[in-house]
């Protein structure tokens, strides 16, 4: 019997490609957000509110990951925001290679802020680095307050958490303080926003923070292991 010691990261190939993407985005001074959530949390609605609020202040582009349809991409295109759609045909997450292909179809010189709307799923996208500056996790009050404890990796790897549908708090079984505490117990450094894409509450604070990040080209090194 002979033993070959390998000790290799299984996702090393993806990480290499992600690093390529990161360098390309950095060269073009693009601030990139990998937006993750469960299905139906309101990722596309958040993007729509963000476009409305930022108007022409920031040049935004979007890479839209969908399992089957390009419906979300069509919603984005209604705002005259350049969008490249990736239909994964069943795959539950985006990988760096798919993003690399999508980037070649975007006008990088005309992009300051890039959103990658990941496939709706809190498990699978957590482990795949795409080359983004940061992951931002979106949760909605209708999902309850225990999501961070059920999906710790996603909350740990995110830089900010946006709590959506705060207008529904009176009607749902979600204690927002418990939700925040659960998230901070997994990731004490998490920046938290509370918004409602229906009433517009909190959207301004979120957008101000975005603009600040784009302006300072905030591109600190990644702190987390994948």
């Amino acid at each position, binding site marked *: 019997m002979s*033993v*070959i*010691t390998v000790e290799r990261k*299984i996702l090393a190939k993806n990480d290499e490609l992600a690093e390529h993407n990161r360098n390309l985005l950095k060269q073009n001074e693009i601030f990139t957000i990998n937006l993750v959530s469960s299905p139906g949390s309101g990722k596309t609605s958040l993007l729509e509110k963000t476009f409305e609020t930022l108007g022409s202040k920031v040049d935004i582009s979007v890479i839209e990951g969908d399992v089957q349809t390009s419906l979300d991409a069509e919603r984005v295109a209604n705002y005259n925001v350049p969008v490249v759609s990736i239909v994964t045909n069943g795959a539950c997450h985006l990988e760096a290679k798919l993003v690399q292909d999508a980037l070649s179809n975007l006008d990088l010189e005309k992009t300051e802020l890039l959103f990658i709307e990941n496939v709706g799923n809190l498990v699978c996208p957590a*482990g795949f680095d795409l080359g983004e500056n940061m992951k931002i996790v979106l949760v909605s009050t209708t999902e309850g307050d225990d999501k961070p*404890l059920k999906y710790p990796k996603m909350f740990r790897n995110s830089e900010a958490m946006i709590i959506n549908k705060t207008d529904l708090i009176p009607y749902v079984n979600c204690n927002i303080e418990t939700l925040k505490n659960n998230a901070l*117990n*997994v990731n004490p450094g998490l920046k938290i926003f509370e918004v409602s894409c229906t009433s517009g509450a909190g959207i301004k604070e979120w957008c101000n923070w975005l603009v600040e990040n784009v302006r300072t080209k905030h591109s600190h090194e990644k702190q987390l292991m994948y």
Partner: protein
Amino acid sequence: MHELSIAKNIVEIIKESVEENDLRSIERVVLKVGELSGVVPDSLQFSLEAISTGTELESAKYEMKRIPFTIKCKVCGNVSDNELGIVKCPVCGSKDTEVVSGNELLISEIILKN
């Protein structure tokens, strides 16, 4: 089911690490799967078996070593096996801690028959 794409990556690494004609002599592949890696060992096992069927790797067995989620407190130095994902030190209550293990997703060893 991101385990399927992880399984494909594993097979690729195996093929790179072992000479072509040795693939059939692989007895066991040892993987290290951290508790916080987001990978379900049973799903990964299933995916590996599914994509190995009918290939040179058909007889290979996969062994998953589960690596616990452990944190080290930067205030009191305590190292503890924590509830999954919770970074609060159980001794002094500080959240100023670092994750020591649990994120691993590695292909560790390949064992060949003689």
